[in-house]
């Protein structure tokens, strides 16, 4: 029931965003571009819905004392939660984005500012290094013996080709 209502609300928001003529937030495009974030958003909504048990609540809340006690608990819980949430929301620098970013995304001004917030200039440097990291295997240092072996191998194979 709740899940359906949530989905309906989300659909309304999305369709309202799509059907207007003026520039609006393109939710469909956003969903395609950032599927991980969309899934996070949806899964949180569905998780909340699936843990909801309306029948038990309906029975319990018929009692007026239970109603009062429940209201008090809810108010206290909201106060406690919002007090902690507000102070931690913006300064939550311990969470590192789980979404893998492309080198281009890592080199934007805002993305590098975020790195600076986390770990200062060293973090900015690390992110730049990561963005410009060459793909695939890198040639390591090679010894004289290895070079000779390689050279002999190549000359043998070229001799073979000639033969």
């Amino acid at each position, binding site marked *: 029931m709740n899940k359906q209502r949530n989905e309906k609300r989300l659909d309304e928001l999305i369709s309202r965003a799509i059907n207007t003529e003026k*520039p609006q937030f393109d939710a469909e495009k956003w969903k395609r571009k950032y599927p991980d974030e969309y899934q996070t958003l949806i899964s949180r909504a569905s998780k909340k819905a699936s843990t909801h048990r309306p029948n038990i609540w309906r029975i319990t809340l018929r009692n007026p004392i239970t109603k009062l006690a429940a209201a008090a608990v809810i108010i206290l819980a909201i106060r406690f939660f919002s007090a902690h949430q507000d102070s931690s*929301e913006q300064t939550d620098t311990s969470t*590192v*984005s789980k979404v893998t970013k492309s080198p281009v995304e890592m080199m*934007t001004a805002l993305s590098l500012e975020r790195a600076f917030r986390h770990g200062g200039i060293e973090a900015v*440097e690390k992110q*730049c290094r990561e963005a410009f990291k060459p793909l695939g295997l890198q040639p390591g240092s090679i010894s004289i013996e290895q070079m000779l072996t390689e050279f002999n191998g190549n000359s043998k194979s070229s001799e073979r080709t000639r033969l």
Partner: protein
Amino acid sequence: MKTIKSRKITMMIFAVLVLLVSAPSVLAYPPDNAAILYYKAFMLYQADDEMNDMLLRFAKGRIELNEKIKEFVNNNRQIVNTVLDASEIKHCDWGLDYSQGTEVLLPPLHKLRQLLGLVLADARIPAQRGDYKTALSRCISVYKMAQHLNERPVILYIVGIAFNAVTNDCIIQILSDMPPDVEMLTWLKCQLAHINKQSFSIKPTLSWKRQAGIISMSPERISDAVHSGIDDGPFKEKVLKRILAADEQFFDRNREYWNRYMDNVEAAFDLPSPQGYAKLKKLDEELTEEFSKNPDSTLTASLFTTWQRIYNLSTRWNTHSNALKSAIEIYMMKAKTGKLPDALPAGLPGDLFSGKPFQYTQTADGFILRCRGKDLEKDEIYEYEFKVKK
């Protein structure tokens, strides 16, 4: 018929003349844009982490010169020359597309820092054999490189400050190795005064951030900004939900809020420390509080910059530079009179954390300039040590 033929000939002569006039400027070296040479150096220069670390530590005077450093710097002579040539070019256009708002792509900053280590190591090597003019000239070139970084994005400003701070350290080391010499110190003082004329300022950064924020606070661009600027977590989730439910008025109101916020940030940067720092800290706290109850603050909170930290870095670097300028005056007095002054001469630039002159103390091998005000972020009072060569 004749007229057409003569017109063709005239056109051809004109084309040849244009080519002849423009060819030298096209082929000339160095180019008129320093960024071309920097990008060239970025592509050619390779150094592993160990070497980068060693070069920077040597530049700051933490380790002594060794054969490994000498050989590495010599092998990269061409890169050093390319960077020095770039630093002498007045114009530097990094080719940044500012129409992208906060999503503008920046140059490879790690490469810049690597080149900083290389050039400053190359500055300290001649100082070790007594060629102080070459050594100090290299340092002046790095200040010029930092000026090239005084572009609009916040991160470029921060990297520029880091360049200036490390160069200050390198000059302090060279001055400590150098016997006080009036001529050389006067030359250095003039060079620093010339560099200071082209002020290294936060102003372009603040005005860029305001404009970039406005560009990014649009229905077409906001998702990219949220994606790259905020970590996954409850804050991001709240922002995304508000954006999903947004209409055009939401973006208008958020842009208005942003403009008011940036007015306050700019005003705070005009204040001296510690008032400026306190105001920026308060703005930060207010924004955190506002976010939970006012949807108009959503996008400002999303594009949040740690302004008080940047203000602090700027104060710290300017104080460091003032200590260096004051030290040059003290070294000059030592060169002229043969002894260090008993007290700090009047009229020297002071500690910007307190707005007061430095505390001056003589030591066994030189002198110390100590701040009177505290770095509020690090809860630390800085002191700068200068050695005098006997």
